């Protein structure tokens, strides 16, 4: 789907009061719009190139209120809250097209676990982008050394975009099977079984499934050459990746870091690196360029 169509489709899910201003903004600076921010009692914010500015309509800044947020959530859930409750429990809803709506409000607990979010306070809509060629440099590294690759970058640096392009290139250019655990529906954004974002012709997508369960399921059922997953953040993820790596499958994954030193400093990432699964490291720099390197492991 072309970018203009994707933006037009996205605005249909937004409250009517912000649509004209947003369509105008998409027309002028479409590619730069990263996020939309809605906070009760504040003007609607737009993140452009990392900076947040207020969204202005014809009569000045557009104010967000509780009703606007509730309407936005209702639209994002396609009037079917039950259908997104498992996502809401994790604080987000994925819209058709892969755009992610983060939700913040008052947590409602039941039986010790987060059951729902009420009294919505703020929402952040991250706009999914398809950037063919975003992982060109990383693809070259993988071509010369086809081993598991870890993509590291700051939050909002474009890790998911790079991972998506890498998946596409491995699938289309290398001609190898890639299985994707699309835990939040952001990587492929499948709608009626069809990926809305380009992930390649040899790619199998498992949407809205936890990483651990997803890896096991894909290994059993799809016999992939590569498994791709977004944001390794838990000990369980690491354990499953390690187990699966013994089956000969290679991984494409991302991690949140503030700098390369985080990979050594944070215990989970240190263990991840020490495990020796990832032989290629792709760091996303502040200017969004890719620094690709081979990870050398000492042979004991």
């Amino acid at each position: 789907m072309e970018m203009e169509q994707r933006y037009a489709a996205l605005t249909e899910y937004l409250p009517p009061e912000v649509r004209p201003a947003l369509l105008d903004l998409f027309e002028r600076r479409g590619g730069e719009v990263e996020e939309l921010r809605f906070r009760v009692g504040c003007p609607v914010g737009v993140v452009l190139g990392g900076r947040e500015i207020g969204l202005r309509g014809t009569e000045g800044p557009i104010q967000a209120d509780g009703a606007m947020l509730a309407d936005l959530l209702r639209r994002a859930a396609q009037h079917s809250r039950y259908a997104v409750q498992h996502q809401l429990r994790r604080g987000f809803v994925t819209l058709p097209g892969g755009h992610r709506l983060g939700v913040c409000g008052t947590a409602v607990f039941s039986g010790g676990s987060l059951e729902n979010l009420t009294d919505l306070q703020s929402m952040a809509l991250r706009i999914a982008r398809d950037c063919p060629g975003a992982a060109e440099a990383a693809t070259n590294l993988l071509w010369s050394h086809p081993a598991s690759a870890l993509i590291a970058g700051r939050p909002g640096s474009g890790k998911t975009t790079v991972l998506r392009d890498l998946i596409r290139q491995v699938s289309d250019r290398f001609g190898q099977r890639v299985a994707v655990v699309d835990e939040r529906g952001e990587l492929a954004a499948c709608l009626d079984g069809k990926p809305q974002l380009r992930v390649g012709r040899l790619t199998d997508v498992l949407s809205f499934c936890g990483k651990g369960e997803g890896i096991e399921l894909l290994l059993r059922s799809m016999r992939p050459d590569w498994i791709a997953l977004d944001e390794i953040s838990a000990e369980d993820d690491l354990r499953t990746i390690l187990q699966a790596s013994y089956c000969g499958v290679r991984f494409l994954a991302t991690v949140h870091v503030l700098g390369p030193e985080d990979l050594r400093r944070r215990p989970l990432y240190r263990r991840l690196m020490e495990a020796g699964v990832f032989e290629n490291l792709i760091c996303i720099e502040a200017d969004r360029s890719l620094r690709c390197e081979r990870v050398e492991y000492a042979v004991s």
Partner: protein
Amino acid sequence: MQYLRFLGAAFVVLSSAWVGFSSARRLRRAGRELDELRAALEQMESELRCASPTYAAVCKRLSETATGAVSQFFSALADDASDPDFEPVGATRRAVERSGLILQPAAFLALEQLFDGFGRFDLTGQLRQLGLAREALSHQAGRLREQTEAKCRSYEILGLCAGAAVLILVV
């Protein structure tokens, strides 16, 4: 002249009987549609339990499996719900009007309560709402079934008798 009189008399009796028979047919159709609606809600419950499809998707699926006015009712709901600017309140009334579904007031109220508030709850709440609507429709269907045959016979006989009465008065 005699021939025309006979024709007129036949028209009087037939038209009056037609009113009675069509009322009876409408009542039988209402019963059949109510049964089909109950079956559709049962299928909806299974669909929600199995894959939690969205409001529009589940209605579309039901429109494909149901028949006649019930299929049109779900098709109208699906069309409405696929519009991002969809307003659930009033959706049931619009869909009933468009489909020509015959509903008793109590059955309509049960459907209105279900579909005008559809999608506001989590899965457990939604299934409970569905259960309540099915119960109300079952109750209505039971009552209708008890009365249908007797009422239908009455309508048919009334139609014929009314025609005969008018004929006697005129002649």
